């Protein structure tokens, strides 16, 4: 893909380029001689050659699958069988599928449980590591380590930590509380998975908040101090308003990610989703019904469409909450 661009020789000015590209340049901008537009002359096809690899990958593996998911949702396609149009049958089936409601419930609970923690805790953490005191670079890096690790590593570490005979239960037993079935009870399992998600996300959002905190003018804090506001008061009257747009961004990123949770629950509850599948999330359900040689591509696509719709709705909801606070 590179060869067609190279041939124009280095030593002679690119005459042919110029001739070919001038009309194109005139069409887009009508200021001849303006700098920044002269520079844009090139072989007529070179922009597309530059963009081709990216467009090809993104088109084949993102945009095309997106549209084909939308289409498949209205067919009874299976992995090895081309489907036929079935109208809304998949969606009618969804309404009566208990597992779908279980998945929707768990993914929604995940958003409600994880997002507040991921909006607030990383902000507090960022405030903790904001001052340039000795050794702070080490702490910042250490707090980021869980972000770097694969979710599989993180999941397995916590499966072992929370095991019936693992570290946490050993400690709980030693202090006389007794064992807790973190990985056997349906609700505790979901809660444990949420904790792991929060644990892994803390460092990431901490870095985002750190950038936002750097932009809060010191004078605001000082003025509040002079007025006699304590640390808690200053947090709510100075820090929070100053980083509010970042909190909205974090809320949007975290809620979309939380609704699509898969790996944590898959690793901690197992492929079948915990006791009686009660911990199945929506993406786990897509993976379960849509893959393999007998995968129901059509039905899994219908669930995916629900995921698209909720994801967009969550984004709009968060952005709307932002605007309301403005008013």
């Amino acid at each position, binding site marked *: 893909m590179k060869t067609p*661009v190279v041939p124009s020789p*280095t030593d*002679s000015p690119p005459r042919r380029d110029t001739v070919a590209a001038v009309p194109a*340049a005139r*069409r*887009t901008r009508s200021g001849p001689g303006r*700098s920044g537009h002269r*520079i844009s002359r*090139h*072989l007529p096809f*070179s*922009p*597309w050659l*530059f963009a081709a690899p*990216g*467009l090809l*990958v*993104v088109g084949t*593996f*993102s*945009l*095309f*699958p*997106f549209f*084909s*998911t939308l289409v*498949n949702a209205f067919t009874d396609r299976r992995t090895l069988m081309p489907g036929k149009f079935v109208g809304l049958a998949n969606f009618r089936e969804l309404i009566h599928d208990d597992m779908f409601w279980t998945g929707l419930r768990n993914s929604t609970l995940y958003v409600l449980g994880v997002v507040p923690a991921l909006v607030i805790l990383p902000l507090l953490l960022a405030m*903790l*590591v904001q*001052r340039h005191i000795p050794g702070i670079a080490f702490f910042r*890096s*250490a707090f*980021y*380590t869980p972000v*770097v*690790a*694969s979710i*599989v*590593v993180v999941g*397995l*570490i916590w499966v*072992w*930590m929370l095991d019936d005979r693992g*570290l946490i239960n*050993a400690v709980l*037993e*030693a202090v006389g509380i007794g064992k807790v079935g973190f990985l056997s009870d349906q609700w505790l399992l979901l809660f444990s998975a949420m904790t792991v998600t929060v644990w892994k996300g803390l460092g990431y959002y901490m*870095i985002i908040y750190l950038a936002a905190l750097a932009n809060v003018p*010191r004078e605001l804090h000082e003025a509040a101090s002079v007025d006699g506001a304590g640390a808690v008061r200053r947090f709510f009257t100075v820090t929070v308003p100053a980083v509010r747009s970042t909190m909205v961004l974090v809320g949007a*990123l975290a809620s979309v990610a939380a609704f699509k949770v*898969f790996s944590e629950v898959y*690793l901690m509850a197992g492929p079948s989703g915990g006791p009686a599948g009660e911990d199945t999330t929506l*993406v786990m359900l897509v*993976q379960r019904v849509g*893959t393999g040689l007998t*995968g129901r*591509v059509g039905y899994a*696509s219908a669930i*995916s469409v629900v*995921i698209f719709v909720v994801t967009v709705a969550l984004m709009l909801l968060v952005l709307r909450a932002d605007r309301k606070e403005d008013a």
Partner: protein
Amino acid sequence: MSILTITDAEGRRIPAWRLLLRYVLLLAVLALTVGPFLWQLSTSLKGPGEDIFSSPPSFLPGHPTLDNYARVADTIPVWDYALNSLKVATANVVTNCVGSALAGYALARMRYRGRRAATLAFVLAMLVPVEGIIIAQFTTMRELGLNNTLIGVLLPGSVAAMNVLLMRNAFLNLPHEVEEAAFVDGANVWQRFLWIALPSVRGTLAVVAIFAFMGAWDDFLWPLIVLSDPGNFTLTIGLNYLHGTFANDERLVAAGTIIAVLPLIVLFACLQRFFFRGVGEGAVKG
């Protein structure tokens, strides 16, 4: 008067008790974030004769041994899996750097009909949630005959839309004058891209490379779907398999997870600033 006097940005002293409180909190969070990794490391170094379930727990291995690392390789071909992960991650770095630099340059620095449409295609692709299209990606991959291959693992993320947009932004921020001078000197578009523009965006390119490596090395859902033959597993899928099949041997799982996480921790320790920079740039875009 303490010997060590800590001052804030304005040169005023921070009271000692507040400094102490801050360090106590920092150490508490440190124990929470790094502790679980150390516990896993400790478990992986405990020999078969040592009780790993003791209560109260023993934090340090009594007789540290690398025995579990040899045994995990007998149980699953963990080094082959690591090699597969390394292949996919390395290829992902190359394809993402080349593909997103080329496309980013075309979006930022060239003028042609359809540039807006091309930009829009990448923006839309970035917004599509991967989890929602994996089944369609899987059927596409089957039709291409690439399921159950490492190429199949690599392809969907080989030029990530977000990286293209990151590179586009980087190129947009370059002053036009430099390239203009090269143009006057007779450099063609390819030469200007390779020798003038690309060296100026090395920082962003490094961010793209690091996140491409980390993304491929850590990925779980997509390889889980596209790979079915244990011979082609990547490390994350191999670990999941190990956990599912030999769940009762915690020492082996611990050794496997340490093998999977250590390269990234080393990478992170060496190239921290690019990791942090990537979070900032990615969040603004994402």
